């Protein structure tokens, strides 16, 4: 399916059993950018139409989770929060985590939820996961503004929070969350087309992954834990720690950590894309 492969004879499309493995086909994705934005628009409209509270739901969900965390992990389990007001601490972690996990879970069901469209018409299948990541951005922005409201309140009341210059790295953090979620998601989606077991593993896996990410605890509290290596291995760890350091002034974050996350993201995305492109050619036979 290489475009412009044989243009000398005027053939501009070849349909073959297998194409070369190393082909990212990003050009084709770009050609379908209109569709990408129409999908985003569709998601946006269909989510908000006919819900009474509309986007308000996106406030309520993280707020309730943060309150639950405050009680369970903060009050009952007594896990420290780097001296940050507990609710703000959890809210910050959840804002980042929710965006990542939403990108991951929605992307991972790309083939199964869209099989009716995919079975009828061809377009680069990557359009769907990429549009998911963009649609989820709206949700992130809502939760992020909720977080800013709480931040403002605690700064006003003189709590121990100090936003720093790292705030400038916000777009980088955002790209990392999206990229890591997308990369993992397309990898998982490629496997779920044939082996549905991965679908069941996923929700459990995402939950497990959250506990190896400093969402409910600060990295500093894990210094002497025997599981520290697992947390360090998680490329989302530096993202959340960095994000907290930027907005709350507490967290362990170095430039090397950032580099590690970035490299992980690119590896996941490239490997994911290669496998995804291979799967999209025949998944209709197995889905």
């Amino acid at each position, binding site marked *: 399916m290489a475009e412009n492969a044989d243009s000398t004879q*005027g053939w501009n499309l*070849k349909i073959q059993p297998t194409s070369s493995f190393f082909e990212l086909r990003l050009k084709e994705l770009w050609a379908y950018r209109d569709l990408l934005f129409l999908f985003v628009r569709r998601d946006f409209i*269909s989510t908000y139409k006919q819900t009474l509270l509309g986007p308000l739901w996106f406030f309520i969900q993280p707020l309730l989770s943060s309150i639950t965390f405050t009680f369970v992990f903060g009050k009952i389990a007594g896990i420290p929060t780097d001296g940050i007001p507990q609710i703000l601490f959890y809210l910050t972690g959840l804002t980042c985590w929710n965006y990542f996990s939403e990108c991951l879970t929605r992307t991972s069901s790309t083939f199964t939820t869209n099989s009716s469209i995919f079975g009828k018409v061809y377009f680069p299948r990557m359009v769907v996961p990429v549009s998911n990541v963009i649609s989820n951005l709206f949700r992130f922005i809502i939760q992020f503004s909720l977080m800013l409201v709480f931040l403002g309140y605690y700064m006003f009341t003189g709590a121990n929070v100090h936003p720093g210059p790292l705030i400038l790295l916000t777009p980088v953090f955002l790209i990392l969350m999206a990229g890591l979620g997308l990369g993992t998601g397309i990898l998982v989606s490629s496997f779920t087309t044939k082996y549905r077991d991965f679908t069941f593993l996923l929700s459990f896996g995402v939950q497990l992954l959250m506990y190896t990410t400093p969402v409910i605890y600060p990295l500093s509290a894990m210094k002497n834990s025997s599981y520290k290596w697992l947390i360090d291995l998680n490329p989302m760890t530096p993202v959340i720690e960095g994000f907290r350091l930027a907005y709350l002034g507490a967290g362990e974050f170095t430039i090397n950590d950032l580099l590690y996350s970035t490299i992980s993201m690119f590896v996941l995305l490239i490997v994911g894309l290669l496998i995804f492109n291979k799967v999209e050619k025949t998944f209709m036979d197995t889905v």
Partner: protein
Amino acid sequence: MSKAIEVHNISKLYRLGAIGTGSLVHDLNRWWKTMRGQEDPYQLVGQVNDRSQKATSPYVWALKDISFSVNEGEVIGIIGKNGAGKSTLLKILSRITSPSQGEIRIKGRIASLLEVGTGFHPELSGRENIFLNGAILGMRKKEIKAKLDEIIDFSGVERYIDTPVKRYSSGMYVRLAFGVAAHLDPEILVIDEVLAVGDAEFQKKCIGKMQDVSRSEGRTVLFVSHNMAAVKSLCTQSIVLKNGMVDFEKGDTELAIQHYIRAEISASKILLRNRKDRSGRGRIQFTAVEYLNGAGEIVPSLISGEKAEIRAYYQNPEQFESINNKIEVSITHPEGIILIQFNNFLKNFSLKLNHKEGYVSVHIDRLPISGGQYFINLLVFSNDLLEDWVIHAGSLLVEEGDYYGYGVSSTGIKAEHTWEEN
């Protein structure tokens, strides 16, 4: 003329049954073999796709070595019964799935229409859905914008264009969906039986639009259909597929359709001859049913209001003779109600039935039943003893015709009658 599509030895292997148990093992085995440069072990055991026979291998060739080419501006019909491989070929051409072997080369932008309204979202308005559907079919936003008025005009839903399509009637929905599809602008168009939608008037409009597209705009079209009338009116050349292979090489549509129908009929003959679900002594047995039109040509369907002949073939291997034979041919509704009984006693006609193989015919002046799918039951008595009785010996497709001669269609049984008013 230069070529627009070249199909080279396309084959497609499918695994039958549930994917799951064992497929991981097969995948690993396949991967291991291909990694070492060997042939895929499962492609060797694949069988020809003949659905009347039980499969002995879990792998089947849905398509095997299909080759043909299409010139620019040609309109080609692809005919074949269910399971012949039409849909698989269509899916490969539309890049929904890829072939197991072979190569297709295409010149120009290709768009496929396997369904109208793909990706329509009920919450979005008609206008928004035009853009979404158009983009899914491969149009750029500005192309859609340029054609927006034309599309709305074609579908005739101007008043409701900003209403969510979930409030549309099914007719409006289909018209809007087809409107988008009809305004696609690729050099090559691959179309499945999407014409079989909407009311009769709209269907006519669609066929007209497709003819315009293919004739005046010089578009290359591949049209896959069961509807022989549509194929006849649109396509100059056709290909017949059978069991995943080319049964009739690209040629004149008339000839292709004849070839297809002949093959269909010979298939149904074999079936009735071998049927086990019959009762009677069996000295005389039915072997086949055929339908003929007024011109005496074998046809796949009859038309209401027109001359029709139902021909029942029988065999009498011992050639025993009887003067008291009774044959009954009845047409039943799929729900089991007998609509019409034809019986030689009713017309005081005596049958000898003394040939080794022969047939009896029922001639109907003007077929009095409405368009639809029916069944034929066959029954033969000799000397009041049941010889053979086959329920649903054949299926009968009746196309609605102009029985009363005023171009108005009706349902149920038709009968000539007059009106009076005092």
